[in-house]
């Protein structure tokens, strides 16, 4: 029976709890050191399929700024972060943009949308 103990540093909130996750035969059996439910969920996931929120920018034309910040609506599998970034590098949008507007839907079939993080109004 394979038993592995992972030291996991929680990144859900700024408190930054550290704890241990025990995995036996591919299943999380015990979690220690985490102080909230979100942290427990994060730690359990981190040892099996780690995910991260992704933020970057896409090009925007017709606005006062050349770039629009975008954010994933949910965490993305860690090993697909750079694929998402490459996808977004090729994206260009037109002002006006409203905060929350979907910029890329279901990126790479991961089931995660990328949304605009701010308004960008039209500048003549």
């Amino acid at each position, binding site marked *: 029976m394979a038993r592995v103990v992972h030291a996991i540093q929680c*990144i859900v909130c700024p408190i930054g709890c550290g704890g241990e996750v025990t995995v036996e035969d591919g299943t999380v059996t015990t979690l220690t050191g985490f102080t909230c439910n979100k942290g427990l969920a994060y730690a359990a996931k981190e040892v099996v399929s780690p995910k991260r929120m992704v933020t970057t920018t896409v090009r925007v034309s017709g606005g006062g700024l050349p770039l629009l910040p975008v954010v994933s609506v949910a965490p993305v599998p860690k090993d697909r972060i750079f694929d998402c970034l490459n996808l977004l590098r090729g994206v260009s949008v037109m002002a006006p943009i409203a905060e929350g507007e979907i910029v890329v839907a279901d990126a790479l079939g991961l089931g995660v949308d990328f949304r605009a993080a701010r308004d960008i109004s039209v500048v003549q």
Partner: protein
Amino acid sequence: MRELSYDVVAIGGGPAGMAAALAAREAGAERVLIIERDRELGGILQQCIHNGFGLRRFEEELTGPGYAHRYIEMVRNSDIDVWLDTTVLAAEPGGVITSVSPQAGLQVVRATSVVYAMGCRERTRGAIRTPGSRPAGVFTAGAAQRMVNMEGYLPGKEVVIVGSGDIGLIMARRMTFEGAKVKAVFEIMPYSNGLTRNIVQCLEDFGIPLYLGHSVTAIHGKDRVTGITVSQVNEKLEIVPDTAFDVACDCVLLSVGLIPENELGRAAGLMLDPITGGALVDQFRQTSLPGFFAAGNVLHVHDLVDWVSEEAAIAGRSAARHARGELPEGGAARQVAAGEGIRTVVPQRLSPLEPGKMSVRFYFRAARPMGASLLQLYADGELAFERKLRIVKPSEMIVADIPVRKIGAATKLEFRLAPAPGKAETEEEIGEEA
């Protein structure tokens, strides 16, 4: 020159200025104005495109622009006046504010209450006296962040980050996302100055090494930076001989601390705390100049914007009350000191407490990392209150509500941090702001 009058004027339209103005309006100030030098509200949040903001304030994880957006919408839906592209040249005692903008020229505003909300600036290479040449390619992390996230230019391709402040850690990931190679982060202290979550998700996720206890001893390159020399330091921060090594790079980003941008306050003659670099304030966030309040990073540097918004709301409410003549008079007679283990405490003084007030909220920075600790209040030399903290890091602000009954009538308050005898049970709990 136009001359106008307002009840409350917030100088700065970042998170502190917006929260202060909104709270002032809500607390009954009739005429409220925000003066912002950029062409939009939001301040430095607009370039902080990463997520992690607002968990406390909005119970949801937002990006910097997303957090700013919430407040900008609230300001837009209010009748608060906003002057953009406008720089305050002077804010003099009596509330006379002189500003200038391309559209409106010079303007004088008479403000019954003024809230300083100018934020902070980054420490520079000069301030840390790093020897070497002075080539292009050495930027403060925040300046680089603006270029990358808002203007769309890269400050280099092979990057070394000096200092482990949060902006530096965030920029390590950002530059990696933009295709640059981040070679290492060097921190002179034996511990990081950034949040633990940022070390994990900005460095460890991408295999970027963090060298603690290392100092940059030279920057090289005649035209553009070509590399740096690094050495280990001992516990006295002295260079350890024969530990020097070179790292080639075309870009050095500095994340070596933030300093309140307090020149207006200094010029107006307000009393400053030599450690925070911000004003000395009481629990109303009133400075030594009556009618002048301060909040956010201009008062003391925060790690979370959520605390900035909350503190600014205190300042804004107080400013509104002052404008209506309802803020208790009597002077900030009682001193609050940072004792053993504590580097800074805000507020640094107490004015007479209002009847019915149950607790006073204090913000602390620890002097050094500690494990489980006791936050202690000594009132006139006697231990009056203590609370367990699970862990103490200088990078993370400690916020605690101290019951009024524990403060009592003591004239001298001193907070200390002591190692906890056993393991603390719970995380620091935050009470309701009364």
